[in-house]
């Protein structure tokens, strides 16, 4: 009997598509993805949003690649997201829309991402996503038993071209490196045949 090791690829989001993340740990998830995307990053957040990324807390190499756009309204925000997704040199666009994304908006963003070969990540409020999204992640920080563990539980709730799943990992927010944490649990799926 052998458990399939959780692969690195499980946490890699598909390029040139728009993804969504919700939950209290969504900003940590966004920074985790930002650290794994080389190239310029664009973070779009409303001008009145109180939460700002703090430069000294960001993963290594992210701060100097980050461009911050603070549009005043929701329309401007979506326009900025679309424009940034259409720009080829940008590698990852992170946006924090205020209102639920409509299907039209989500679809438009997908088309823009495909046109610009750019990945998008929408940090949405709970259940405020669009059906056009490629994947939707629910991200929660978890309390760790050891003193230096910073555990995250990232659950893949929706996936257009793959299976769902839930991963608990130990990522300290400083670099792109992380450790998977295997939890003792009861197996629900049938055992895989030995290769």
């Amino acid at each position, binding site marked *: 009997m052998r458990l399939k090791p959780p692969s690195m690829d499980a946490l890699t989001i598909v390029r040139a598509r728009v993804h969504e993340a919700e939950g*209290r*740990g969504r*900003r*940590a998830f966004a*920074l*985790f993805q930002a650290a794994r995307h080389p190239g*310029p990053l664009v973070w779009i957040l409303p*001008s009145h949003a*109180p*939460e*700002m*990324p*703090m*430069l*000294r*807390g*960001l993963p*290594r190499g992210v*701060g*100097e*690649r*980050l*461009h*911050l*756009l*603070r*549009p*005043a309204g929701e329309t*401007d925000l979506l*326009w*900025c997201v679309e*424009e*940034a997704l259409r*720009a*080829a*040199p*940008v590698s990852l666009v992170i946006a924090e829309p205020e209102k639920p994304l409509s299907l039209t908006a989500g679809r438009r963003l997908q088309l823009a991402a495909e046109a610009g070969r750019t990945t998008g990540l929408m940090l949405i409020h709970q259940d405020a996503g669009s059906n056009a999204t490629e994947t939707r992640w629910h991200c*929660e*920080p*978890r*309390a*760790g038993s050891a*003193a230096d563990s*910073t555990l*995250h539980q990232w659950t893949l709730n929706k996936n257009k071209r793959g299976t769902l799943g839930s991963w608990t990992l130990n*990522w*300290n*927010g*400083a670099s792109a490196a992380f450790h998977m944490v295997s939890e003792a649990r009861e197996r629900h799926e049938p055992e895989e045949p030995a290769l």
Partner: protein
Amino acid sequence: MALADARAICPELATRPADLAREAAALGALRRWAGRYAPMVATDGVDGLMADISGVSHLFGGEQDLRGDLHARLERAGLAAASAIAGTRGAAHALARHGGGVVPDGRLAEGIGHLPVTALRVDHGTAEALARVGLSRIADLIPLPRAPLARRFGAGLVLRLDQALGAQAEPVAAEPDTPHFGVRMTLPDPIGLQADVMVGLMRLLERLCHKLTLHRMGARRLRLELRRVDHGTVQVEIGLARPMRDPTRIAALFARGVDEIDSGFGIDALRLSAPLTEPLAPEQTGGAGPALRHEDALADLLSSVGNRIGFDRVLRLLPAESLIPERSFLLAPAAYTAPETLPPRAGAPRPITLFPPEPVVVTTTGTPPACFRWRRMRFSTLRATGPERIAPEWWFDDPAWRTGLRDYWRIETREGPRLWLFVTPQSQDWPGPGGARSWHVQGAFA
């Protein structure tokens, strides 16, 4: 005359402080206009213009007619002016300030002989010394031997006299014009289609960019003015994230503004100007590889976004030398700054998000609190790291830091979130129920 004396004579005198900068600007504008009379026009002091009209006057029908034409035009514009035409620069300067007129060729000594010696651009002390020995007019100086004159009154007086009489050459030194980055185009028939305007704009842009290339400049801001048939003017203005002189890339940024204009009954004139330019060294294009193209494309994105939401909302995070969390980084406009690498991290970890301090409701005493409520969520402390004491910067009066020192704690909660809490031990607040002190949340860790 002193102002007090003038007020004593005429109590109703209206006075206004001199605005030297605007006066100089007005004189500069007048100098450009005076270019219609002569190719070489220079400013002469703070209140004069000097034009070299050699070989020009016959175009206006003679020197008298030229001067008449000049006076008529200035009078129509509401300007009172005095002018003189003479064979040398010194003579013209002297005569213009003492009556004006035209000195015919070869009669300089007669023409300016009757003027006082102060007209010779000599300093006050020299003029006084001349008056003391009874030399009050230029004509008195002309027959005197030069050597004793120079020995007694200095070489400056002889130089000025020679310059006025033409013995010493003194050319009109016209300062070079600052290049004007503006082009215009008038059309025989009005146009109204968006594509037509873009074609016209493209032609203007090619001319403007050629001019920018010649002067090694790049535009930072561009303004397109469209004059309509009904004499209305529409204006489209764009900013650029970095100096640029590439017509096709600039035209793409104009597309949105041109799309929004109302052409009315048609547009019959276009004017394109670059009000803001910056030096841009010539650079090799094409061969530099994809890195440069990427940089260009990113600058284009920042330009187009900045033109819609404002360039002050397109930001970059820059490190700053401060331990105060709010001031440990700067939000700087991305269009005017370059990215800076962060010094290697040291000291206590910092949260990934920072927000203005939000009070938490503490239900138990203890440092740090074992239980608290924040944003209507209940948290219980699992592990706390700290305190990290941060003192306010006494040389910088920040209202948020008037409560004094802050002890920061990294609190890992049983519910998951890892928060950055602080308490202000120096604050004079009344303790809460049960002696609890006021705690605030300011950030969240990864």
